[in-house]
């Protein structure tokens, strides 16, 4: 069948045409909002030219520059400066803090002794300077306080707070503590002296033992251990007596 015959057939096939038209009419009709939905989909996919004014982009760029600058400055202040300070401190001699009396960074270790004296006065504890411990070496001064009933006055806690007055980067700063014992040490570079405080709970009491010596002196802890043993002996003796 050639094209002409086919077109002629199409004209005459009225039953076939009618059947196809009826079938087509039974097919679903196009929903009214389909094109709108399609356009939404197309618009989502199509990269559109920017409708944001140029000044908005400029403002955003300026904000980013400012934010970057601020971020960099903050980074410099927070991260770099402390590390630079630390590196300076580590490279320079530790005398910086105790360089002079007028130096505001100077922290006098003798303040600890003043505080202990006030604390002892408040609780009416007498400083002991027995011969055996008072002078053990040339220029070495030792003293002791026996605070009664640590539950009433927590010497360990007080000394811990005192230790917090001082920067842990101070020369010779050493703080070591356990549940019932504290060792705190400082060195005064300006005066060339070394300070050591030992606090220990012995029975219900608390022994505070201080040593103030020249930096060059070698300190023996024998005086402390002797005094401590003596305290323990007294404590036990008092227990027996009480018993």
């Amino acid at each position: 069948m050639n094209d002409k015959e086919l077109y002629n057939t199409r004209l005459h096939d009225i039953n076939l045409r009618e059947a196809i038209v009826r079938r087509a009419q039974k097919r679903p009709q196009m929903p009214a909002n389909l094109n709108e939905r399609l356009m939404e989909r197309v618009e989502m996919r199509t990269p559109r030219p920017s409708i944001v004014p140029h000044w908005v982009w400029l403002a955003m760029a300026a904000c980013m520059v400012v934010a970057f600058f601020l971020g960099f400055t903050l980074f410099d202040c927070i991260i770099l400066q402390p590390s630079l300070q630390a590196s300076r401190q580590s490279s320079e001699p530790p005398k910086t803090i105790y360089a002079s009396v007028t130096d505001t960074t100077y922290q006098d270790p003798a303040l600890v002794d003043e505080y202990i004296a006030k604390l002892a006065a408040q609780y009416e504890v007498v400083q002991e300077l027995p011969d055996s411990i008072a002078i053990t070496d040339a220029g070495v001064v030792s003293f002791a306080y026996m605070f009664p009933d640590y539950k009433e006055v927590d010497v360990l806690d007080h000394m811990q707070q005192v230790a917090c007055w001082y920067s842990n980067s101070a020369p010779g700063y050493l703080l070591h503590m356990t549940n019932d014992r504290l060792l705190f040490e400082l060195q005064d570079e300006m005066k060339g002296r070394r300070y050591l405080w030992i606090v220990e709970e012995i029975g219900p009491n608390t022994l505070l033992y201080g040593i103030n010596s020249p930096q060059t002196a070698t300190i023996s802890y024998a005086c402390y251990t002797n005094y401590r043993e003596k305290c323990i002996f007294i404590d036990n003796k008092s227990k027996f007596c009480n018993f």
Partner: protein
Amino acid sequence: MEKDIDKLIQGLCQQDGQAQRCVLQLYGEMIFGQIARIVACYEDVEEVYQDVFVKVFRNIRSYDSSQASLATWMSRIAYHESLNFVRHQREPIVYVDDRDIDLESIQDEELAQVFQQQDEQTILMIEMALEHLPPYELALITMFYFDDMSIKDIAYTTDSTPSTVASRLSRTRRKLYRIIQSLDYER
């Protein structure tokens, strides 16, 4: 009119939303109907419709006005999209295969008696028989009888040649006759 279409195509090439809306308004229903006659499920028709126009808008630059009109070019996309969709459906549908049917022995008078003499009963039978045609044959015969498309345009739409289209149309018409015969026999 031609100038309007050229302007419309120019707008489509620039991805202009107004031109896209205009195309949908002009050709949307035609394309939807074409898809709906091939794809059975209503929801699927909507999906294929959207896919067709997304392709149209995306590939508008490949449209060659010397080969076919804009409507025919879009019909071609819709035809292939619909057939691809039907082919990829999960459950394959069995259609009447013309390998086992004797089509050559059918006389033209027999065909004319069924298709050319208006009869309500026969129209209903033809309607039923249409459902037994494979999608590509149904699309072919619908394009020819319902859309009044030329054989040349159908050939363009189906990626075929006019002679092949003519031959297929003739065979499909004979096949329908055999299907009607078998349906009548079953009754």
